[in-house]
């Protein structure tokens, strides 16, 4: 094509008009011929990420690789961008969003069958050279997908470095954390479980079929009823499984997104920013809950006026600010509830169960805010990672320490044990929630302030004190 060449807008060669926030272009948009603009797609990245050189041999410097390692091939899903609706009023409803929903949905980046979670993680973990031998030296490595932020990574490195003269409690914590990551030795166990499960399913199917045949012989009506029920059961199972599957795909996509954005933001001039921004935008435009936010964002910072690096900044400031504050609200509410329940409940077992349930719920809610919406397996995965994260970074002590700071050491001593237990529980919940935020956020914190444990803690103490006062007054 020669510079200076012009085309009619009805020309079939014109593929897409850039999304433009100003909306003055509707007239122009109507002139474009294409019924449904063809989207330009690069294939999604291959499933197993290339092993990180050096990651296998060294342990303590692994966190440094976060964000600066060369990333897997980049998926630019431009559906959200270029699937511009041809003209019409700019009503940004989900219904009006690009009509490529059924077809244009990109492949999940990593297709993980729900049941084989651990096996898949082993398969995708680095070093094809040492396939099966469990490597104890590598164990304290925070798993790559776990993606602790740099800060946490540093904290982790610090703990492992001082390993020599450490207190018993801390090494116990470390061991617990190690156990969480020690999955390679379970490979054969996984094979056993999977084969047993498969066997069980085969037997079940055979049994059901023969049962059905018998029922038909017994009574036609009953047979029909039973097969109807069976059909329903199969369908619902299918739906459940596919939902889980999709949820897991969402989560792995989110992890991939985070890697992209971290890589883009860590380098000067942000060469990967274009791809990272396109991926973030596409991912959030796809979901009904956030589509309107993305529409607003596009209006505010259209892609042909702002560089991708600028748009990442605006995305964080405008879109994520809203999501962050929603997440913090959820975390605060949960921390408050846990603290109060623990304080007033007489049964320790009840506390524990309640806290576990609340925390799980909170983590799911936080994830949902960021558009990850984990299924059951996903929640478990998240919970495990969040716990591991908190353990690795000494989150328990942090919670305790922050509380001490807030209340002043002497005060904690004077509080009733129940109350201080409640507060510690609440702080731990908050810490878990913040870790979940870190896990699910598509961008690292850069232009927005990272919510601090002490902020949440301060409000927690105030709220708990107030509610206890109130209950005392009522008494």
């Amino acid at each position, binding site marked *: *094509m*020669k*510079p*200076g*060449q*012009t*085309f*009619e*807008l009805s*020309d079939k*060669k*014109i*593929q*897409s*008009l*850039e999304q*433009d*926030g*100003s*909306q*003055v*272009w509707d*007239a*122009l948009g109507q*002139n*474009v011929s294409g019924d449904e603009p063809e989207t*330009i797609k690069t294939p999604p990245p291959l499933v197993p990420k290339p092993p990180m050189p050096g990651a296998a041999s060294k342990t303590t410097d692994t966190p440094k690789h976060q964000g600066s390692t060369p990333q897997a091939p980049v998926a630019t899903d431009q559906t959200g961008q*270029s699937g511009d609706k041809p003209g019409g009023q700019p009503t940004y409803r989900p219904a009006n969003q690009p009509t490529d929903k059924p077809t244009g949905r990109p492949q999940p980046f990593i297709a993980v069958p729900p049941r084989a979670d651990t096996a898949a993680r082993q398969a995708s973990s680095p070093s094809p050279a040492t396939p099966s031998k469990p490597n104890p030296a590598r164990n304290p490595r925070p798993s790559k997908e776990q993606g602790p932020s740099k800060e946490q990574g540093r904290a982790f490195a610090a703990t492992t470095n001082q390993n020599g003269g450490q207190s018993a409690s801390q090494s116990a914590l470390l061991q617990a954390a190690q156990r969480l990551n020690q999955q390679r030795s379970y490979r054969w166990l996984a094979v056993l479980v999977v084969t047993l499960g498969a066997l069980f399913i085969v037997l079940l199917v055979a049994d059901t079929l023969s049962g059905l045949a018998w029922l038909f012989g017994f009574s036609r009506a009953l047979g029909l009823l039973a097969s109807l029920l069976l059909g329903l059961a199969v369908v619902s199972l299918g739906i459940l499984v596919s939902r889980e599957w999709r949820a897991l795909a969402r989560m792995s996509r989110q992890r991939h997104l985070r890697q992209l954005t971290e890589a883009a933001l860590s380098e000067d001039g942000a060469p990967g920013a274009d791809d990272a921004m396109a991926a973030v935008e596409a991912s959030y435009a796809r979901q009904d809950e956030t589509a309107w936010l993305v529409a607003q964002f596009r209006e*505010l*910072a*259209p*892609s*042909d*006026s*702002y*560089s991708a690096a*600028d748009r990442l*900044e*605006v995305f964080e*400031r*405008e879109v994520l600010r809203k999501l962050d504050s929603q997440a913090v609200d959820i975390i605060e509410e949960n921390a408050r509830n846990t603290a109060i329940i623990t304080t007033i409940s007489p049964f320790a077992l009840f506390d524990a169960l309640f806290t576990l349930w609340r925390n799980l719920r909170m983590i799911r809610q936080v994830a949902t805010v960021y558009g990850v919406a984990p299924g059951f397996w996903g929640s478990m995965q998240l919970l495990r990672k969040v716990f591991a994260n908190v353990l690795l970074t000494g989150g328990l002590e942090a919670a305790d320490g922050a509380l001490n700071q807030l209340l002043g050491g002497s005060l904690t001593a004077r509080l009733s044990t129940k109350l201080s237990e409640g507060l510690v529980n609440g702080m731990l919940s908050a810490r878990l929630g913040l870790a979940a935020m870190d896990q699910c956020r598509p961008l690292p914190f850069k232009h927005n302030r990272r919510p601090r444990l002490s902020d949440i803690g301060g409000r927690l103490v105030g709220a708990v004190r107030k509610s206890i006062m109130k209950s005392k007054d009522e008494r």
Partner: protein
Amino acid sequence: MDSIRPTLQSASVLQRSHAGVGALLSGVRDQITSPFSEPTLRLGVTGLSRSGKTVFITSLVHNILTARRFPLFQASAQGRLTAAVLRPQPNLDLPRFAYEANIDGLLGGQPVWPESTWRLSQLRLTISYKPTSLLKRAMPGPHLLNLDLIDYPGEWLLDLPLLTLDFADWSDQVLAAAKQPARKPYARPWLEALGQLDLNGDHDERVYIELAQLYTNYLRACRQKNLMIAQLQPGRFLMPGDLEGSPSLTFCPVPRPRGNLSKSGFFATCTQRYEAYKKHVVRPFFRDHFSKLDRQIVLTDLLGAAAAGPAAVEDLQAAMTTVLQAFRPGANSWLSKLFRGRRIDKMLFASTKADHLPRAQHDRLARLLGELAFEPANNARFRGADVSFMALSAIKSTRLAKVREQGKVYDCITGWIAGQQQPKAFYPGELPDSLAELKRGIDAPLAQVRFMPPPNLDHQQQGLPHIGLDRSLEFLLGDLLS
């Protein structure tokens, strides 16, 4: 913004050097927020003619008045701009900037760009904002910032170097340039008339008028061909403003005649008129409007020059360098010595009409501008001013389209090309990576097209679309609104 280099010192308001007590007092009065006076920012919008000054001012004012949300202009993004109004301007003897007429033209049924500027005009925009700084918040509100803007024909800016040149030197320069091959054809009628004249003799006024006319024609031709734009002086010949027909505009460069100068001869008379022009036209213009600037945005039509060819790029660089010497921030600039000027503590270089180029090339455009304006920018930086470069489109009137041809996808620009009824897509080609390449000439020159504003620019009353206006405002005003 391409790069904000670290500055040697961040110029604090109170540390500014002011020569006289009066200047010091006025500086303090202007800069410090107090219940009795309002801080005022004199923003210099500097640029040669057709560089986009009028469009920039119009878009800036309109977007602030309509409270457009600017994502990268923090005061606006954070919702701290509470209101803005146009208020009576400080200089009552100046015409008011024709904001309303310009915006009506842009938003009308047949959108047009503002008419080219033929005289000086002024506008004061007052912004009311919520500060973030504790000190300011402690003061009783409302917190206001006056933004004083002036618009003028870019041609006049080129008169600036005349202030240091006497008539004979200036004439020598102009005559030498006129004899170069590229310009000679346009200069011939004037040079021939000059050759037939007795330069020491007395002449009728008609001769002066005729020669000035011939010289003006030569200047016009040069401007049209983008030739020698650094030397299109005197600026008022091209854009006389209110001085049309005045005797201070009837002279032209003259070679120094041999022998004794006659006092009433052609050369001597032209010298007198040249000096009068400097004294009564050039000097007051700069004294009143340029020596008191606080901040400056330098608009450059680099794309236009690139389209016109290597010579135009060279000329543009020369013109910018000469013009900006006067604005040298810092006490040692000869202009500030002459007029006791202020210091300009922030200087933004913007390459305008960036909407003629796809987004992906904007960074390159800003880099090229950085090379083009290296010398003035470096000067400013050395004296402690903040300098930045960026690609800008005050009113974005195009839209990006991807065009596929033979398996490749090209970034094209769509919009209403001047003179055409239908919007078209246009492939602008690629800018080279360095200024050296640009000066060597690009083998595939960006064709020169002019995009008109599209209809319905602001149909939601949410302000005009733009590229980089918010970045530039953040750089120029951000700290004053915090």
